[in-house]
């Protein structure tokens, strides 16, 4: 379950692809934490275009990233959310806190 990051001018784009479940969530969180700690980004965009499956582990990853970016005073948005993931996030009410585009 890879996550690949690119950044320009403290704007971080993280692309998550494959299946994001409990088995892979920890690694993704660690990588996102590492990127956030290193860059202190003013904006983080999570691109989920390549995400083929997620469950409540994805909710935990999004909530944690959202909290960390809020603490930093940076912006956080999620783009290209596939239908399956969108249904999971909506069941948890994430659209009330997180910007989905």
């Amino acid at each position, binding site marked *: 379950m890879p996550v690949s990051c690119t950044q320009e001018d403290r704007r971080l784009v993280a692309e998550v692809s494959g*299946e994001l*479940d*409990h*088995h892979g*969530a*920890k690694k993704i*969180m660690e990588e996102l934490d590492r990127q956030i700690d290193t860059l202190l980004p003013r904006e983080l965009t999570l691109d989920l275009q390549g995400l083929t*499956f997620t*469950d*409540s*582990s994805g*909710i*935990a*990853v999004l*909530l*944690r990233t959202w909290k960390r970016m809020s603490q930093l005073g940076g912006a956080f948005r999620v783009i290209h959310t596939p*239908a*399956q993931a969108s*249904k*999971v996030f909506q*069941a*948890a009410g994430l659209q009330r806190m997180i910007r989905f585009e």
Partner: protein
Amino acid sequence: MKVENYVSLEFPSSSSNEGFARAAAACFAAQLDPTLEEINDVKTAVSEAVTNAIVHAYPDTLGKIVMKLRLREDHSLEIVVRDWGVGIADVEQARTPLFTTGSEERSGMGFTIMESFMDVLRVRSTPGKGTTVTMRRKIARRSGR
């Protein structure tokens, strides 16, 4: 209710089996000619139930998980996920949204997802004995098939 077909799978509570369990459930459900959305709902609910057993039932050891899939004559799918782990003292509390005893990578939304993606969710648990989660989902019969 008559059971028209079934499969029973036993596997250890290793997190690498989460993907296997939901793929197996999706393959079995394919006999009901579900839509992609119905298949995804089933996969998501199975992922939650099996992950709960892996994370919570056997926190420090590898234990046995049995998943039973049943196709019922009313065109519904029944999924039973059973473990013989630590059990849940307060099932009602465990089913409350955002409640979790897990670490940071858990959201406490597992049962909420199972409830909203399946038609029926029943949880029976005895501390020290284990937990049985039973879920049911009706798959719409599609015309022209």
